[in-house]
């Protein structure tokens, strides 16, 4: 079994109102010095050792993210 993380983020040119809302709220809560916030999704998968990187990329690109508006990164975590 391996642990795999997939992070999915809105593409830089896509408006991210959720990140914006966070960024706008922080100064009101007294936190300064945060220039920008973007919000995406974080997936943690438990995968069989038989699942190769190519398959993981397919899952991330074809399913966990929507390539029209999102980018993704796949990482295998050390066991």
């Amino acid at each position, binding site marked *: 079994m391996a642990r795999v993380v997939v992070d999915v983020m809105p593409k830089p040119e896509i*408006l991210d109102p*959720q990140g914006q809302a966070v960024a706008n709220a922080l100064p009101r809560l007294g936190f300064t010095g945060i220039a920008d916030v973007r919000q995406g999704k974080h997936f943690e998968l438990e995968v069989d050792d038989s699942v190769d990187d190519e398959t993981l990329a397919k899952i991330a690109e074809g399913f966990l993210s*929507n390539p*029209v*508006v999102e980018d993704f990164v796949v990482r295998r975590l050390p066991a």
Partner: protein
Amino acid sequence: MRIGVITFPGTLDDADAARAVRYAGAEAVALWHGDADLRGVDAVVVPGGFSYGDYLRAGAIARFAPVMGEVVRAVRGGLPVLGICNGFQILCEAGLLPGALLRNAGLHFVCRDQRLRVERTSTAWTGGFEAGAEIVVPVKNMDGRYTAEQSTVDELEGEGRVVFRYLGANPNGSLGDIAGISSADGRVVGLMPHPEHAIDELTGPSADGLRLFTSVLGSVLA
């Protein structure tokens, strides 16, 4: 004339879409997500709701259903398909329409009676409208902000494929106030507002939405 209405797990507006089909004078045929079978229908409605809870991304899981494979195949043969709300999201995810629908700019679910302008009448679903007609149809969604690359939006605008546009306050931050678009041949239409909830003045803000369903009768019979 027989119009199919697809039910996925989590579809909510299937009964309403079927009612609209009947009000328009056609026969509504229930289609099941798990069956790769369109039962010989003349057109298909992909209705609204939260298929699979929309937990991953609106429409992301439903588009892989066996019935969608048949829809994609039939569209190549010119089958008229209407995607409403979640149905629109599913059609985008399936690549039948360009772009994507993202979380509303206001980050809330929005349900309101929305004024729209019918921008294109040369589609299978809008042939019965006057060009430029202004209609009132409910909008209700969490993820209704139409987004696409600028080049895609330019192409849609250039080819006149924006079918419906929001009038008044934009409810979700959609690019160019886009409420609905069509495929190049006008057979596939997707929109966020719910015409099936505007088929009589008793249960909706108007009966304007009924015309999408009567339009397709004309286009198929023609």
